[in-house]
């Protein structure tokens, strides 16, 4: 049977979002078919982990029993576990500045053994103060910011950071 021309399914283009669909906000895939875990350092005390699960992984594991295990690299036994349920991302707060971390996504067997299904990249959190490492031959940096100068620097930084955040990328300055 021949389908009349005008009733044929139109060009498959239509399966893709029309360009500049101004009325509706096109939605994005909820998950991708890949098991991967990423870790990003956000600030001296916060990490952000996000992950996706492949179709196989989703079939083979009880998703809502997933756990995120975060290790501080170089410190044996230094890890903490969080039950992450069916979440796809997690903020890890209260970590140490200037320290290295890595995470694993996995599953706690009834025996208590942790089975990993994905390992993250290692990350290093930033310092939140002057480095302790100084070279004896060098002038101490703090001499450049002596007395009121150092105080002004510290007070000023905070204010600066507040003001610049609202000033950068100008066209949409929040009032």
């Amino acid at each position, binding site marked *: 049977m021949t389908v009349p021309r005008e009733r044929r399914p139109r060009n498959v283009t239509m399966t893709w979002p029309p360009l500049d669909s101004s009325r509706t906000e096109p939605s994005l895939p909820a998950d991708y078919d890949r098991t991967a875990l990423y870790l990003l350092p956000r600030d001296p005390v916060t990490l952000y982990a996000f992950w996706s699960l492949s179709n196989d992984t989703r079939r083979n594991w009880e998703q809502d029993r997933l756990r995120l295990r975060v290790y501080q690299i170089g410190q044996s036994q230094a890890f903490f576990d969080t039950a992450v349920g069916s979440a796809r991302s997690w903020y890890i707060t209260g970590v140490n500045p200037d320290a290295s971390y890595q995470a694993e996504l996995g599953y706690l067997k009834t025996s208590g053994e942790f089975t990993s299904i994905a390992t993250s990249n290692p990350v290093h959190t930033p310092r939140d103060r002057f*480095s302790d490492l100084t070279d004896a031959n060098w002038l101490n940096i703090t001499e450049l910011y002596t007395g009121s100068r150092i105080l002004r620097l510290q007070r000023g930084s905070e204010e600066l*950071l507040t003001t610049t955040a609202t000033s950068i990328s100008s066209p949409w300055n929040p009032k």
Partner: protein
Amino acid sequence: MTQGYLALVLHAHLPFVRHSKHPCCLEEKWLFEAINETYLPLLRVFEGWKRDGIPARVTVSLTPPLLEMLRDELLVERYSQSLNKTLELTYKELARTATNPAEHRVVRMYQELYETNRYEFHHRYNRDLVAAFARLQEAGILEIIASAATHGYLPLLAETPSAVKAQIQVGVETYRRHLAKEPVGFWLPECGFSPGLDELLFAGGLRYVILDTHGILYASPRPRYGTYAPIYCQSGLAAFGRDVESSKQVWSQQEGYPGDYDYRDFYRDIGFDLDLDYIAPYILPEGKRIHTGLKYYRITGPTQYKEYYDPERAREKAAVHAGNFVFNREHQISYLAGLMDRKPIVVAPYDMELFGHWWFEGPKWLDYVVRKTACDQKVFTLITPGDYLKIYPRNQVSTPCMSSWGWKGYHEVWLNSTNDWLYPHLYEAALRMEELARTYPRASGLLARALNQMARELLLAQSSDWAFIMKTGTVVEYAKKRFNNHINRFNGLYQQIKEDRLEEDWLSELEATDNIFGTLNYQFYG
């Protein structure tokens, strides 16, 4: 004999806002306002230094989306039309305000501004502002530095190195294509840095970046000169640090110059103040009020009550503030020179759009600062970071600290509950891009076009502007729509390639819509 140096750095950026199918797009007006209020007025200031033989050196970054937009025929034509429209309104306003001398005087100032803009845009610059900047670089007034392809926030993209490499490489190629030169410096979007980026930047041929203050102060080992000399990363990339004092005098909303009561008020605009019937042709369809660029009041004080703007009084204030800035730098630099065994450099980076757009008198202030520096004192001279490295090629080796110039100083502005959902899509897209670039290392014809377009969509999705808008809560719907569109277009092309059913019509439409980086080649993702 000069005791030290001041490096003024102006960073210009706008996201790629080109909506070929919408003739009246609010976001394109960002570009038109920036041209009218910032780029053309600053070019006039720079040209004045050249004409008068002022020994001026200023560092400027023009991001790739901005370079592309300033040379996009459609946007150039739309700017020209929008300027005509603004002038039409200005002439109506001249008539309307004829009996009110105080108000009329302000309208005449705008008449002069926009008439000068129209003349110079068409006849002096031949509708090509990029060439105007390039000539000023040749003339030794400006050192123009490169930046990331779409202002991607590099530290948060860094776990897929191909994404960062592409941001850098496309940024450098776009610089070469528009400015016909090799860049030496690189503007890190939002001053966002994390150790490791320096290696990719150095490998890309770049020699210096600018970090926020604590990026240098918290470096390890502790930098000998604080922010008053650059340090070298292990890779060999030099990192300069933002000076707190000079930044605060300009940026700070509490004590910065731009908040002075004599300066023009940004928020009071006739687009909001005048009768809808009268102003309707100059705002958005359906009577949605927007800024027209005609603003008649001075800041006056912390009240709703505003007085008319007095251009002469504001000009005098800009001169006073410039004198104060130069005076403070003299004292700062002579103090530092006494502590250091080399000449200090004070690095003062600002958003270029602050000058003229937000701070209307900014270009005049900058003009006075540079002229006073040249003529009224001998303590310091202007320099660019590139020139400083030629004078002092030996510097301490130290690893800068992860940092940005955003709120709280690290990555939180671009990674919080309003925008963290962007990253899984960006990371997956980068992996898909790598996968296809490796599967098809030498594609040609339709497939190559599709792969190149995927790279464009990925780069556009990576603009840090979307995350920033979501955090600040301004035009959030627009940012979400832009991000989702680019990711969906990317994923659509990916799926079509995987299923071997590329649709040329759709691809052509995408190429015409997201037409940034016309000469881009996807192969560097492989």
